[in-house]
């Protein structure tokens, strides 16, 4: 399912990130990689703050939709 449907506070594993662009590459560099853990800290109208490898990263709804967990 897309990350956008994940519940706050629950730890999920990234299955893949769809699409192929600069932003995807940037996310991967920041630690959003297949098999990595991801936890939603806060959600606001689809925009999310997630915990990835111990850091907090804010991502917009369109991005959260592309992360499959």
């Amino acid at each position, binding site marked *: 399912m897309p990350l956008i449907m994940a519940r706050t506070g629950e730890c999920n594993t990234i299955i893949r990130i769809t699409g192929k662009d600069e932003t995807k590459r940037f996310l991967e560099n920041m630690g959003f*990689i297949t098999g990595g853990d991801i936890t939603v800290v806060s959600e606001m109208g689809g925009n999310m703050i997630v915990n990835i490898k111990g850091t907090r990263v804010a*991502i917009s709804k369109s991005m959260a939709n592309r992360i499959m967990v």
Partner: protein
Amino acid sequence: MEIKIALAGNPNSGKTTMFNALTGSSQYVGNWPGVTVEKKEGRLKGHKEVVITDLPGIYSLSPYTLEEVVTRNYLLNDHPDVIINIVDASNIERNLYLTTQLVELGIPVIVALNMMDIVNKNGDIINTEKLAKALGCQVIETAAIKGTGVKEAANKAVELVRLKRITTPQHVFATDVEEALDIIQGQLSKTVKASQKRWYAIKLFERDDKVMSTLGLDAEIQKKIEKIITDCEKIMSDDAESIITNERYEYISRIVKKCTIKKVTGMTTSDKIDRIVTNRWLALPIFAAVMWLVYFISISSLGAIVTDWTNDVLFGGWVTNFATGALESVGAADWLIGLIVDGIIGGVGAVLGFLPQMLILFFFLAILEDCGYMTRVAFIMDRIFRKFGLSGKSFIPLMISSGCGVPGIMASRTIENENDRKITIMVTTFIPCGAKLPIIALIAGAIFSGATWVAPSMYFLGIGMVLISGIILKKTKLFSGDPAPFVMELPQYHIPSLKGVLTHMWERGKSFVIKAGTVIFVACGVIWFLQSFSWGLQMVDPSESILASIGTVIAPIFAPLGFGTWQATVATITGLVAKENVVGTFGVLYGISEVAGDGVEIWSRVAADFTVVSAFAFLVFNMLCAPCFAAIGAIKREMGSWKWTWITIGYQTSLAYAAAFIVYQIGSVVFLGQNFTILTVIALAIIAFVIWLLVRPAKKLIPVVAAQH
């Protein structure tokens, strides 16, 4: 021999703090990613021959935003002798990702394991010896904020250069990848240094366009390399870039597991705060309350009290009386007394009077930036800004611009999307900066008898114009396309240090004082001269002066906006040098000093030239029109072309003219009961035109075939 040390690391890992500790300078340190957008150089304390370069933070050597390009170019082309890689130890896994790339550059690397104080406080343990062995480079524990380990890191770096020992990467990729890399390395020409071959091979494997073009390989070799990559991708069933990224992270996970013991923790305090301040219902009310409080304290309540005191008592009374008395007692000529008291003290004093108010505002802004809240606001605002064609990241430049437009424009570099960045640069100076505050305060006091709604209305006007411009500009052909997805690291909250906040406040306030002492000082002197003398260099009544005759020629341009007097015209034009000059000019022209001890009098003289409506139009125009020269310079630098600079200035000035025109023409009819004229009709037409710009469908790149049908 000169030694060049480069400081590289993730954003917000403490590079600038370390830079300050090593060089003894006081560069601004903030708690959000992207504080440093340009490289800065300094010399190691006590070692003149060692040059240290502070670089903007990067997540990897594949740049995403402009300031990351600055860093990569420096590391590749400026050949630093050694890199100190600052690693945030409290967040070691993500930070080491960059380290794995830095060690491949063929430059000696030392890892400064920073923020060890936080790690120790959390009760985590990092085995630095094991880590050093696994990475293949020396690791030194530091806590830059307290200055521990910093000297040692620098000494070790210098020593490493003297020994000429190059760091060799310890990490090997999967066999298939290594084979591919070997073949690619073989294709590289002899111009590439042997120590850098591996790095270039990896970059080519990742299909890095910029590296590809700098190497200038033959088409045939390019084809060959592409074939190797696609073959490898087939075997690994993933794209080349992801293969490299995943392998690096897997490698780091192994190292981290081996070298660290981490206490299991639940939600951190930071997360708990985020639960509240980024809550979907509470986020906006909290933000509104915070901003209201900041502006209420610094502008309306406390700020107004100190500003009134400095203006009326300090400069209006004491300084003026003292200067007049002193000059008269030594028998100075009348014109000299005039120049000093009316010109310089009147003008500079009128500007400096607002310093306390500004310092209070800067103090609060520094707290907001330093504690980590500002990045959250960018996140909160993203949803709203997106509706207006902007990204949440535009918020940080806007917020900084409420202090000063120049760093605000510079801060736009962190916006990755070219279009978003350009729009942000074009609109960011609509937010009233510190230097525009005095203009607001003067008009509010003189014409609106200090009504508290005037200042906030200017901020709303600024924000409104930003949003309107966002929509209008996005719909033009120049900027079509969606804003880039929002991705931004949020730092941990921390209690701002008083020293940091005060330094930051002073840094911003200082430039204001320097401006008052230089540019505004000179400008006020010149204006006093021009308004006191006629073309025949006779001392005359201001209405017959040189300034009046120049102003009168230009004034008709502003007549449709309601302030076609030569004084207001001159004030507006001097505002281009620095916005504080608008008030300085008023101070000189209306004589702040002649009304010693009673500030109300200058106000009444200003009031005689304005109506409520024309004063508001004057404010609107001065808030929105072309910014000061310093900001125009920053726009030129960030836009990188004169064409875009002129587009920006042109857009801002025509928007300002249109808005002021509408305010004056419509306002005169509605509030002053004046007759409906042809100008009123034009104003209504402009409104209709703007509405059309807002609602028309966006320009999309429609395929030609589809358009013909």
